């Protein structure tokens, strides 16, 4: 009879010694290490309002695309996931493809932003950002790329301002919030959101991070750091790791009122696909969304399950709907090597055919 474990004690001791050596090397490498910078692709600030900034990115060559692309990121975490590091930058890659890229950086809300609603974000901030880009290019409509919650915002915006969006791309965007594998949604259902927001005011970033980590507590709180030991003796890899840590934990608080509305209407009541969602007193009807839509989702996404995104195809009114399944996770879709090879080229190709 065989046992499932066949670990050679000598080899095991060798592994332990190696682990210890890497730890020792890591101590040297970590000491005095500066906080890693993001890619910081050259960019120009073109609009600013309250905490929000709109950036226009500068590529090495002139854009070949006639229509600019505005990236609408989620309110959770910072927008720099799209421009994380030089060789893992979706923005840089899109520029290289020939896109003319703008990005909304929502900033870090504080107490003054406590009462911002989804109407303020979507029909206020977002609409003014779109107008700024339209104005700069003298266009009636621009292309929009919504990411995660920003994708949900983009869907609402496009449904409410149909004339201002020419082509819409959604990435890892939740549309059906009640798929059975949606852990976040499952946890939200019994939450007394009114009491929660009344008690907390703005929702602290630390709390949001805590909830995300508890979606996969063993992998994200432990296995990841044990894996880190393997790269402690590699300064480049270590820097990449720490950059990602910076992005994960340097996140903004959530404006209380917008959070209340988002959890209630989207997560708890699933109004986006029921057709009962109202933003600023106007109904959001996905069926009215008739412009071309490219929906990209990640097959191993633990935050936005693929089925939550796939649902979009059943609800939009457009006849030009394209779906792209990416083999990776919620973050890998921006920063993995595969993502660099597959995602920006696919976006550019799809847009070019509709430019």
């Amino acid at each position: 009879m065989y046992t499932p474990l066949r670990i050679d004690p000598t080899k095991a001791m060798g592994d332990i010694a190696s682990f210890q050596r890497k730890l020792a090397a890591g101590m040297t490498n970590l000491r005095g290490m500066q906080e890693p910078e993001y890619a910081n692709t050259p960019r120009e600030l073109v609009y600013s309002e309250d905490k929000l900034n709109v950036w226009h990115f500068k590529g090495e060559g002139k854009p070949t695309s006639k229509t600019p692309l505005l990236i609408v990121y989620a309110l959770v975490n910072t927008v720099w996931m799209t421009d994380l590091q030089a060789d893992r930058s979706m923005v840089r890659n899109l520029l290289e493809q020939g896109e003319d890229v703008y990005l909304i950086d929502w900033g870090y809300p504080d107490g003054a932003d406590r009462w911002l609603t989804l109407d303020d974000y979507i029909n206020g901030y977002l609409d003014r950002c779109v107008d700024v880009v339209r104005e700069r290019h003298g266009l009636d409509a621009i292309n929009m790329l919504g990411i995660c919650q920003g994708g949900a915002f983009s869907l609402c915006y496009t449904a409410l301002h149909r004339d201002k969006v020419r082509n819409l791309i959604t990435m890892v965007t939740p549309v059906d919030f009640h798929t059975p594998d949606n852990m976040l949604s499952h946890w939200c259902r019994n939450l007394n959101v009114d009491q929660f927001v009344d008690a907390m005011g703005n929702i602290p970033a630390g709390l949001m991070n805590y909830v995300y980590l508890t979606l996969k507590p063993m992998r994200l709180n432990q296995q990841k750091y044990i894996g880190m030991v393997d790269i402690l003796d590699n300064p480049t890899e270590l820097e990449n790791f720490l950059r990602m840590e910076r992005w994960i934990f340097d996140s903004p608080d959530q404006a209380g009122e917008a959070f209340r509305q988002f959890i209630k209407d989207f997560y708890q009541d699933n109004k986006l696909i029921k057709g009962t969602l109202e933003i600023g007193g106007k109904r959001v009807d996905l069926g009215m969304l008739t412009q071309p839509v490219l929906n990209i989702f990640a097959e191993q996404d633990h935050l936005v399950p693929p089925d939550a995104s796939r649902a979009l195809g059943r609800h939009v009114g457009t006849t030009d709907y394209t779906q792209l399944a990416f083999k990776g996770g919620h973050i890998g879709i921006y920063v993995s090597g595969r993502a660099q090879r597959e995602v920006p080229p696919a976006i550019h190709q799809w847009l070019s055919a509709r430019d």
Partner: protein
Amino acid sequence: MADQASDFIKDDFIRNYQALAQQSWDAWARQMQQPQQPAQNPFFTPATTATAGNETLERTLAGLKGYFDWMQGVAAGSSTPPGGDWQQQLQQLFGGAGQPFAQAFGGIDSTGAEGFARQWQTWMQAAQQHPGFGDLAGAQGAASGPTPAFGQNREQQMQQQDMAAAILASMQASARYQTLIQRANSHGMERLQDKLAQHAEPGRQIESIKGLYDLWIDAAEEAYAEIALSNEFREVYGDMVNTQMRVRQLQLKQTEKICQELGVPTRSEVSSLGERLQAMRRELAALKHQLAASQSSAATAGKTSAAKATAKPPASAVKKSVATVAMSPRKVAVRKSTVGKANVKSSAAVSKPRSKPVTHVSPRKRK
């Protein structure tokens, strides 16, 4: 091989190595204990964070240390002769409270509850030291059941009773949550055994410590996900958060009462002002929008009148002219209404000094 390993473990070299390893851990601990950014408490900002500042790093370090200890345990345990009771061996490797799995759940997953407990203790201390908080010790007794309050301190007493009851409810909810986490823990062990059983044949055996660890993580996550997606978890989780928020609301209420007595503006007052301000900003934006729309309508009417006053063009030209006018107001409206004068100014003012590409921006510093 077993004897060989046994001798190896007993060897002085190992003892010396372990002493060196301990020194290494101590050095790491010192490194980690240098001033760090304060850790975020998930549900509350702790009142005292002098020692909590290194919480995340300490936890990481503890996790690594736990893993290291566990590795040594595996190495020692690997001397079990072939055909031995591997399931019992597994229990020894993964079952102890000091094992990484337990630490991960105990140290991370219950952080919400721990944070709450710490907050509660701080609150209790403050209540005992500050007369304004009333007799919380008496209120604790009231947690066993409401007692009618009367007299001059009636309101205060009622508040204390509410607080005690809320704390009790919260602690009970957290305990139910912990029970589920423990269940996930034990289910994880069962899953690991099932997974390992599939490796009990030549060519499929686990040959490295890391391989065993990764399998264990897979099993633990699967078990956790199953529990976390259950209706029971959903109910317990909601209850835990809701009861914690109830306590927080009562804390805020009591704090505000003291602030009012001291003449300090309260959070409710500031928040109320913020709400009114935001409402006014919306009204102002709507008025600007209306004004711009009426201005552009007037401009369009002016253009149309001027066009009518000129000679009558051929039919095809009229069609073209109408189409141009129809486009025109919208563009004007974009420039004057939706973007807004203030915003255009702001845009220009900000973009001018930054006309050169930005190469280094730290968003946090701009805050």
